[in-house]
């Protein structure tokens, strides 16, 4: 048993020699039982990171451990739903679920898979090729949940679901996490829908981890300050982003000790924190203690 779901050290992946690597030097640690939002702009490397953790890609360099072992060895305990929700188009809904049962004999939760499918009013006889994007997503998630995996890797799971379906599925995922301590990693570029469901965050951009850690810890490490001072007055802190507002200045800072009372201080929202870091690609990364890779990860 391990208390670490995913641990990456200096993880790099290049799809070709001439192309910019999709990931370069990613290091982080995700404890088990967390619900982690994997956010970042398009092309940031989110899908690459998930595919690596699912054991579908091999890193160019660096190391990656999943549930205390190699991604390939962890595969029976991991469920991965790729962005394009690959399913066999010629099978019916019922046949797809039966395939899930046979491929995961021993751990398959038929009741849960059937419930997730039934919630979406999927006709058991319908062929996969006739399903809408949202219905296909639901079937893919039914397969993933039915597997009763210890780690769920979901790439843009909510993208083509309507608001009610999103809410229901997120509720089902949270119930799984509450009851079985399942670790969940979900990617999205819409942070709003993840903010309440997740307790952990990985912000990836430009192939690097920019922010990593518990959401509360990351938010508390920053402050949104407004005042008539100058950027130089904030020098003891790390200024992530600053801009002129009226006669004064608004800045998002990573605090180091108390802030001069001349500044009006507010806690940033998660969205403000993420946007500031995305607009300021040169701001130093912050991986909070306990979420940095701790020891040599499995080769």
């Amino acid at each position: 048993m391990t208390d670490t779901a995913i641990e990456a050290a200096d993880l790099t992946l290049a799809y070709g020699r001439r192309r910019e690597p999709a990931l370069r030097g990613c290091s982080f640690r995700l404890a088990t039982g967390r619900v982690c939002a994997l956010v970042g702009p398009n092309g940031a490397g989110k899908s690459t990171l998930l595919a690596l953790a699912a054991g579908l890609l091999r890193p160019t360099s660096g190391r990656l451990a999943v549930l205390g072992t190699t991604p390939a060895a962890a595969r029976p305990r991991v469920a991965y739903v790729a962005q394009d929700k690959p399913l066999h188009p010629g099978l019916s809904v019922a046949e797809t679920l039966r395939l899930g049962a046979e491929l995961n004999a021993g751990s398959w939760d038929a009741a849960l898979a059937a419930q997730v499918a039934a919630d979406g009013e999927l006709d058991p006889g319908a062929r996969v090729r006739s399903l809408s994007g949202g219905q296909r997503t639901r079937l893919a998630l039914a397969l993933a949940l039915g597997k009763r995996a210890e780690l769920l890797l979901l790439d843009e799971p909510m993208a083509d679901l309507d608001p009610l379906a999103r809410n229901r599925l997120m509720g089902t995922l949270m119930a799984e996490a509450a009851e079985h301590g399942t670790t969940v990693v979900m990617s999205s570029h819409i942070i709003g829908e993840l903010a309440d469901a997740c307790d952990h965050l990985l912000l990836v951009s430009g192939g690097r981890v920019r922010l990593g850690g518990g959401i509360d810890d990351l938010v508390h490490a920053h402050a949104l300050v407004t005042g008539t001072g100058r950027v130089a007055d904030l020098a003891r802190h790390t200024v992530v982003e600053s801009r002129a507002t009226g006669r004064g200045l608004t800045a998002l800072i990573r605090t180091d000790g108390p802030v001069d009372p001349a500044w009006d201080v507010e806690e940033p929202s998660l969205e403000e924190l993420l946007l500031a870091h995305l607009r300021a690609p040169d701001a130093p990364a912050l991986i909070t203690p306990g979420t940095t890779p701790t020891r040599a990860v499995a080769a």
Partner: protein
Amino acid sequence: MVEYRIDRRSGVATYLQIVQQTRQALRLGLLEPGDKLPTAREVVEATAVNPNTVLKAYRELEREGLVEARRGLGTFVRRSLGGAPADTPLHGELLEWATRARAAGLDREDTAALFAAVLEEKFPQPHAAPEQAVPQPQPPPERTLPQPQSVPHGTTTEGDPA
């Protein structure tokens, strides 16, 4: 069984919304001593919030002595919050006051602001100190209500402010 409603745009931390709605249910008598709160699983399934958020809210309620966790059984109400049952005479007086406020030409926002100002004067929030405290980024305001911890079941303790 209470149902929690999470308002993502309220600006109030999610765990605090659960705490406040539980307190409200206790005040209104929707929950009474001995009643069981929904399990974390039930809450997260209905609201799609993170399980730790619910556990944090329940810990806060436990710290305030309002509920207790019984191992393997669930979380149960220990005592109710008295003070303002819906049929109190205060309700009628407040209704009268609001009617007069409307007659005096105040709109909804004016009235709410006036009420909030009086509320703040009579029930100052412990964390909103009048002097400008060192403005540090603070964790979500954890209300520390000085409340008796050991109270016999079934009694209402919070004295009527009047």
